[in-house]
């Protein structure tokens, strides 16, 4: 006899991982609840992916309105209403989070509001109510990592959440501590809005993990736009004074210390999994030293009917990975043959130009023992990029030498994230550079540069001299 539970599936956390899991579970006929203690949509919709992209667009428009002078379009009396900017951004967030709530209703997912904590492996307490479920999906996400010596006040020293609230006036001098994706997205926003921005990174490279050539082109373009970048630099201390925040910076190689003064400091040094108040140990669920709840390819934790997905389960902490894992967990529970078997998880920095990639970097491919060929095609040779006034960057394709199989695609350029669709599908379909080269790409599109990079692998690109 099977015990009867309140729900077939109870999902903890309504971020992208959790809401995807809940909706798919409901679509598959399971009785589903989703618990959220703060805001439906999680980090992604409320304080992550979406509001940053809104601000990036706004900043980009400021930039493009200047660039329009190249073709004779000039503006006078430019003014930016910061209140309206923040309001517009929040309007988009509201529309999307409201949308998710609506989808919960339409799909008959029960939304439970409050802090969830495990009572046992089938029971979760939310506020003063307890709920039982045959299966539980943990999707509690992550939170900003903190830096000793630098206290976030969300006013002048902010983390990514504080940085989303654009202050009026725009800060004059801004420091981004951390040269990863989030650090650079904010650097780009504030640089376009008029701040004098510097990014510091502890490691020898910014956007660690991305392809070296792509990162070099990306950094060059950011610097050309006025963002200062210092690698192998760390921030030891920040002190608020009358004239601004005094930050002690240290050159990691030499140990040399300097103090610089900023109007706003962003701490964006990474994120850590979040399980506060969850009490997973009461369900017997393993948590690693670093706070992750590990899961297998079916998203199962060590307790087989408890699943973990998204940021709380593993790196990379990306919304689309959380979404995929949410779908997998829900489908596995419903008895479907799902698995997190992705060949590659794409990454994007939504600056302008964008940096976007999927699959192995050249270094990773070599490390894994592949003999590789590469092909590069610069946007400077793309007619479409010229008409868009955005010719920085290139498409770099990495291919296994003997088989011609695609291993990775790395793009710095306009709309780079749009081109990941093709690259990602190509990797999943085990396509070769030849498959891409033989596919007609519409002219004049940015996607032609993907085709040309594939041709370049074979030294047969048309619009560059192949060497």
């Amino acid at each position, binding site marked *: 006899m099977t015990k009867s539970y309140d729900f077939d599936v109870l999902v903890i956390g309504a971020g992208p991982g959790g809401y995807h899991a809940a909706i798919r579970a409901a679509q598959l006929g399971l009785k589903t609840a989703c618990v959220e203690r703060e805001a439906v949509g999680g980090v992604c919709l409320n304080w992550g992916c979406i509001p940053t992209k809104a601000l990036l667009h706004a900043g980009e428009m400021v930039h493009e309105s200047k660039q329009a002078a190249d073709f004779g379009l000039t503006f006078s009396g430019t003014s930016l209403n910061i209140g309206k900017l923040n309001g517009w951004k929040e309007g988009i967030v509201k529309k999307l989070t409201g949308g998710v709530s609506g989808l919960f209703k339409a799909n008959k997912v029960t939304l439970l509001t409050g802090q969830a904590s495990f009572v046992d492996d089938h029971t979760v307490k939310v506020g003063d109510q307890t709920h039982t479920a045959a299966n539980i999906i943990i999707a509690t996400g992550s939170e900003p990592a903190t830096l000793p010596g630098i206290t976030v006040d969300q006013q002048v020293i902010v983390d990514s959440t504080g940085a989303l609230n654009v202050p009026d006036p725009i800060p004059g001098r801004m420091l981004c501590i951390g040269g990863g994706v989030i650090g650079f997205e904010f650097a780009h926003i504030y640089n376009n809005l008029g701040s004098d921005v510097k990014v510091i990174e502890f490691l020898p490279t910014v956007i660690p993990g991305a392809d070296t050539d792509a990162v070099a082109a990306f950094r060059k373009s950011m610097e050309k736009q006025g963002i200062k970048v210092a690698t192998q630099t760390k921030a030891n201390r920040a002190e608020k004074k009358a004239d601004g925040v005094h930050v002690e910076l240290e050159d990691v190689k030499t140990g040399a210390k300097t103090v610089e003064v900023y109007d706003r400091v962003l701490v964006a040094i990474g994120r850590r999994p979040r399980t506060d108040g969850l009490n997973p140990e009461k369900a017997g669920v393993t948590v690693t030293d670093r706070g992750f709840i590990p899961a297998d390819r079916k998203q199962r934790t060590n307790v087989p009917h408890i699943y973990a997905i998204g940021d709380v389960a593993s790196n990379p902490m990306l919304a689309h990975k959380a979404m995929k894992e949410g779908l997998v967990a829900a489908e596995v529970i419903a008895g*479907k*043959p*799902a*698995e997190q*078997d992705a060949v590659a998880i794409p990454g994007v920095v939504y600056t302008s130009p964008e940096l976007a990639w999927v699959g192995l970097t050249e270094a990773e491919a070599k490390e894994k023992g592949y003999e590789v060929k590469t092909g590069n095609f610069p946007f400077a040779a793309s007619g479409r990029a010229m008409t868009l006034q955005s010719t920085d960057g290139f498409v770099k394709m990495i291919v296994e030498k003997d*088989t*011609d*199989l695609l291993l990775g695609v790395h793009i710095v350029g306009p709309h780079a994230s749009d081109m990941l669709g093709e690259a990602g599908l190509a990797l*999943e*379909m*085990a396509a*070769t550079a030849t*498959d891409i080269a033989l596919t007609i790409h519409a002219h004049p599109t940015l996607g032609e540069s993907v085709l040309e990079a594939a041709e370049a692998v074979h030294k047969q690109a048309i619009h560059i001299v192949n060497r």
Partner: protein
Amino acid sequence: RAAAPAAPVKHNEGRILAVPAARQLARELNVDLAYVPGSGPNGRIRVADVLAFSQQATQAPAAAPA
């Protein structure tokens, strides 16, 4: 007794090249992709290859003399 059915042939080692739908179907039909001959370039496995393999596998015992 009839001769034991021929040992299955491993067609793929290491990286298995299969399109997403074929990987999903293989899990559904309990097919080990390592044994599925792929009809595409580099031995890429498509949905039809998984179907053909699984049909063959279920037909094989019936075809063998009792």
